[in-house]
């Protein structure tokens, strides 16, 4: 695709105009009184919610679409962009915090400097790498990029990320040893179930059950009359006990929690949609 300059210039003009409009609007918005601000925010929230609610509730034609299905398809790109900008907010907050620490020489500011340097270097190579991967603006994958990105990504970021997560194994081990003392009925039920599941779901559970001599296979005959000794012994195998705990005892507990969380989430969605939630805005 040739570098079509006229289309590029027009595009840049449009974008500059959009930025100018957005910036010009700010002082205008600034004149809004607090009540007006709350009204504007609640209105925008309501309209955004109404669009998606209507797309779900409106009846659909034979092609399984209603009048809002196609507009939603077109809007997707902008929604992905806004989500990316909102995720970038976290990065912006982090860099801003540590930049202030470094500039104002707050305690431990040296570490903030380390963070900022790592951020800038990695951002540079990550952007370069993604551009080279897509061959944008004729950017190639040079040897420098390959070595630097492999070192920073594969042999530093990946290693630190994996190690940080593995720390928790040590904490779980010491916490389980120290905290799991039979203090109450509840803690005992929880602990006993946890141990049964831990030993039942690993192959060792099968090995122990076999070595005790519990029947390994459930024949059709055992299924039809469950009170046969064979069947009872079969169900005493550790893998069977752990499976039964997870599929018959644990599943209804999770479903009850799901119903509680689900109804709570729907109630909160309605409160947020109608801007009833006092603590937030």
């Amino acid at each position: 695709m040739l570098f079509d300059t006229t289309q590029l210039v027009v595009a840049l003009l449009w974008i500059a105009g959009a930025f100018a409009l957005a910036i010009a609007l700010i002082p205008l918005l600034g004149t809004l009184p607090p009540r007006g601000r709350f009204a504007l925010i609640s209105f925008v929230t309501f309209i955004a919610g109404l669009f998606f609610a209507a797309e779900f509730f409106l009846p659909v034609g034979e092609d399984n679409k209603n009048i809002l299905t196609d507009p939603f398809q077109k809007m997707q790109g902008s929604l992905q962009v806004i989500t990316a900008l909102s995720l970038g907010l976290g990065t912006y907050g982090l860099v801003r915090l540590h930049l202030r620490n470094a500039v104002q020489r707050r305690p431990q500011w040296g570490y903030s400097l380390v963070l900022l340097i790592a951020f800038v270097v990695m951002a540079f190579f990550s952007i370069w790498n993604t551009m080279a991967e897509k061959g944008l603006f004729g950017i190639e994958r040079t040897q420098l990029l390959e070595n630097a990105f492999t070192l920073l990504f594969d042999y530093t970021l990946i290693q630190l990320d994996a190690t940080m997560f593995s720390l928790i194994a040590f904490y779980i081990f010491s916490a389980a040893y120290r905290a799991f003392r039979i203090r109450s009925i509840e803690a005992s039920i929880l602990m006993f179930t946890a141990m049964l599941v831990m030993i039942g779901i690993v192959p060792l559970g099968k090995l122990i059950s076999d070595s005790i001599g519990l029947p390994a296979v459930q024949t059709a005959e055992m299924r039809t009359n469950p009170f046969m000794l064979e069947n009872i012994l079969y169900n005493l195998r550790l893998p069977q006990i752990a499976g039964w705990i997870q599929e018959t005892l644990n599943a209804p507990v999770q479903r009850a929690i799901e119903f509680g969380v689900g109804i709570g989430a729907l109630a909160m969605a309605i409160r947020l949609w109608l801007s009833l939630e006092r603590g937030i805005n």
Partner: protein
Amino acid sequence: MDWLNEFLPTSTERLNVWIGVICTFAIYSILYRENPFYRFFEHMYIGLAAGYALGPYLVDVLYRYWWEPIRIEGAWGLVFVVPFGMYLYFIYSERYGWISRIVIGALIGAYSGLAFQMFSSRYLPQLHGALTKPLWFPPNATGEIFLSNIFNNWIFLIILISVMVYFTFSFEHRGAVKRTAILGRWFLMIGLGAMFGNTVMARMALLIGRVYYLLDSWLMIRVGGG
């Protein structure tokens, strides 16, 4: 002897592995106690992670969903998305902080509107699954139904109802309801026990993955396993 010079950081490949190992031991040093070595690598980690994300955010997303549609397909309507989306970054300013709430409000509103489809698709099939468990041999038994299925259906229903009773708050729990709620909390403990058993397995696996890396890639000891 050849193991040694293959082990030492002579080639760039080996140097990289050694750097990865230094990072690993720096993080593990916190197990002994908090120290500057750990804190240096922790802050480097957070900086690297934040810096890395910019590639996918800026290039992969903004290019694909914003710049290219405008530049090539001339979708002029899209130009306003980034400028007005940038209002989000006023969140820290004193005077215009509230402007960021307009965009945050739009996001909150969008997710509230999407909650209705989620509620229908995630929770109603679970409701249906809970009420199609026959408590005795149904008249037109389609598939093979065994006594063990009926027994398990009873347990499923009793646990489900008692845990739901536990999570009710708008009436006093007295008598039978109180006993059901207590029973519900004990069944809750069984569910939590199952969660804890699996959580232990998850965390152990992550540590095992690191030890495996150290043995296999660093010390070049071929590890067996099952």
